[in-house]
């Protein structure tokens, strides 16, 4: 195939105006071509499902070790030591990933299900008593915070650092804008607390954190690597599920017909959560860096160039999905890229699904209808899409 010049765009996909309504811009990017030059950022963008999937699956060409944000680690020093999984390539990636994969395996999830389901039932019962509440702090945040830090093995004191630390991590993938600068300006106390918590003696026995440290005993990890790998769960284990659950609540509140289907058949809870991940894509974007000159969608790319993947745009690409802008809880969602794809696909995806499923199932059984009780307020982050506030009223079944 002969190569062509890519169309160019002056879009800033990390601006507040874009975050307020990204969908028309996503459509323009998809229609412009398989690869678009993003002049404002000095990088390439891919917004179609096929190219996003292709980049994810070609890790030798599109590497993660030079950072999965706009910053190129080959040219600039990252704000923290690189992640052992997210910001590594094979073979180093493979070893650390295997440890996390085991800690967060389907078999491990079976052991958590009963406790997580009981916590979800308690939370929904408590909120039904209140009737009207803010579904972001009181449910989307409160439920994961009631189960995940304990599963990770975090001490009870100082947990107020958890959410600010995660927010910094995801803001830091963006360009040098106000969101990133403000996040990094305040990160020091959060990072110090997190690194202290990642030490073996500060993690509860039987927890995810303890299991990661145990891999240092068998030589799978070095003692220096274990706390850095634990840090990945502090970075990626909470804001993601919070925004995933927030997305599901926001979808079910906006589409009462879909909530009625879920109420009629609570076994659809897991599918309703998965479809919300496709529909809202709580993690909106990730970058890769070319390790060599290559070609994508007929466009020649040089070595050392950043490629921005628009996961949310791929998840609504009409080339891949029927009625992409409909939230349909019976949809076959296999192949969506809300959790990424390829070797770096979210290692906590099973935990996210477990949390989402048990919470939506508890709602489905106990709640007849969900009503929006006030104006939702968006929360801005360079990578994460979600709300800061969503007033809801629940009607008991």
């Amino acid at each position, binding site marked *: 195939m002969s190569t062509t010049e890519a169309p160019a765009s002056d879009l800033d996909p990390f601006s507040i105006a874009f975050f307020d309504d990204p969908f028309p811009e996503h459509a323009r990017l998809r229609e412009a071509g398989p690869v678009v030059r993003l002049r404002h950022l000095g990088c390439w963008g891919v917004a179609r499902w096929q190219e996003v999937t292709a980049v994810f699956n070609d890790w030798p060409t599109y590497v993660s070790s030079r950072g999965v944000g706009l910053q190129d680690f080959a040219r600039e020093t990252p704000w923290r030591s690189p992640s052992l999984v997210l910001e590594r390539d094979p073979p180093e990636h493979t070893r650390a990933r295997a440890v996390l994969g085991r800690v967060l395996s*389907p078999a491990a999830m079976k052991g958590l299900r009963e406790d997580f389901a009981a916590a979800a039932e308690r939370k929904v019962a408590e909120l039904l008593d209140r009737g009207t509440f803010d579904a972001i702090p009181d449910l989307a945040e409160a439920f994961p915070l009631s189960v995940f830090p304990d599963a990770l093995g975090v001490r009870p004191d100082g947990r107020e650092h958890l959410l600010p630390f995660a927010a910094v991590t995801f803001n830091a993938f963006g360009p040098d804008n106000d969101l990133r600068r403000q996040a990094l300006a305040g990160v020091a106390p959060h990072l110090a607390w997190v690194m202290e918590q990642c030490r073996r003696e500060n993690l509860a026995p039987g927890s995810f954190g303890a299991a990661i440290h145990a891999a240092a005993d068998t030589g799978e990890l070095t003692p220096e690597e274990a706390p850095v790998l634990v840090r990945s769960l502090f970075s990626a284990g909470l804001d993601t599920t919070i925004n995933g659950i927030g997305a599901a609540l926001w979808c079910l509140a906006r589409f009462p017909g879909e909530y009625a289907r879920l109420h009629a058949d609570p076994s659809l809870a897991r599918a309703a959560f998965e479809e919300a991940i496709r529909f809202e894509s709580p993690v909106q974007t990730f970058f890769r860096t070319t390790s060599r000159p290559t070609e994508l969608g007929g466009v020649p790319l040089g070595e050392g160039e950043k490629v921005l993947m628009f996961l949310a745009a791929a998840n609504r690409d009409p080339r891949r999905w029927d009625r992409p802008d409909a939230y349909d809880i019976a949809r076959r969602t*296999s*192949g969506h890229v809300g959790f990424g*794809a390829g070797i770096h*696909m979210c290692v906590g*995806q099973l935990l996210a699904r477990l949390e989402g499923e048990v919470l939506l199932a508890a709602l489905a059984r106990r709640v007849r209808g969900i009503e929006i009780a006030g104006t939702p307020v968006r929360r801005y982050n360079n990578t994460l899409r979600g709300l800061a506030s969503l007033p809801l009223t629940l009607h008991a079944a």
Partner: protein
Amino acid sequence: MPSITFIHPDGRRQEIEADDGSSVMQAAIAEGLEEILAECGGNCMCATCHVYVIEDSAGALPPPTQDEDALLDGTAAERRPNSRLSCQLPASEGLVLELPERQT
């Protein structure tokens, strides 16, 4: 276009034509078989495309990798000696696969 046969949990047999080069999981999804979820999309990370291999007359199936073996310990339906993740199985002529009752 290899043809492969699925046996549904109710005993019903269904023969489908798979695209050349596709996995058993991809063939099942393309056909709309509800018993295969494939939540991770074929990345060998979720164990929701579990099948039981009843017949592999061509002997074409690769042995499970360490990753697949570990995931099979967490399948929702009982793990049996012939349990496999269908995203790891190339669709080859004459395969007969039984679908489990549940994937989650």
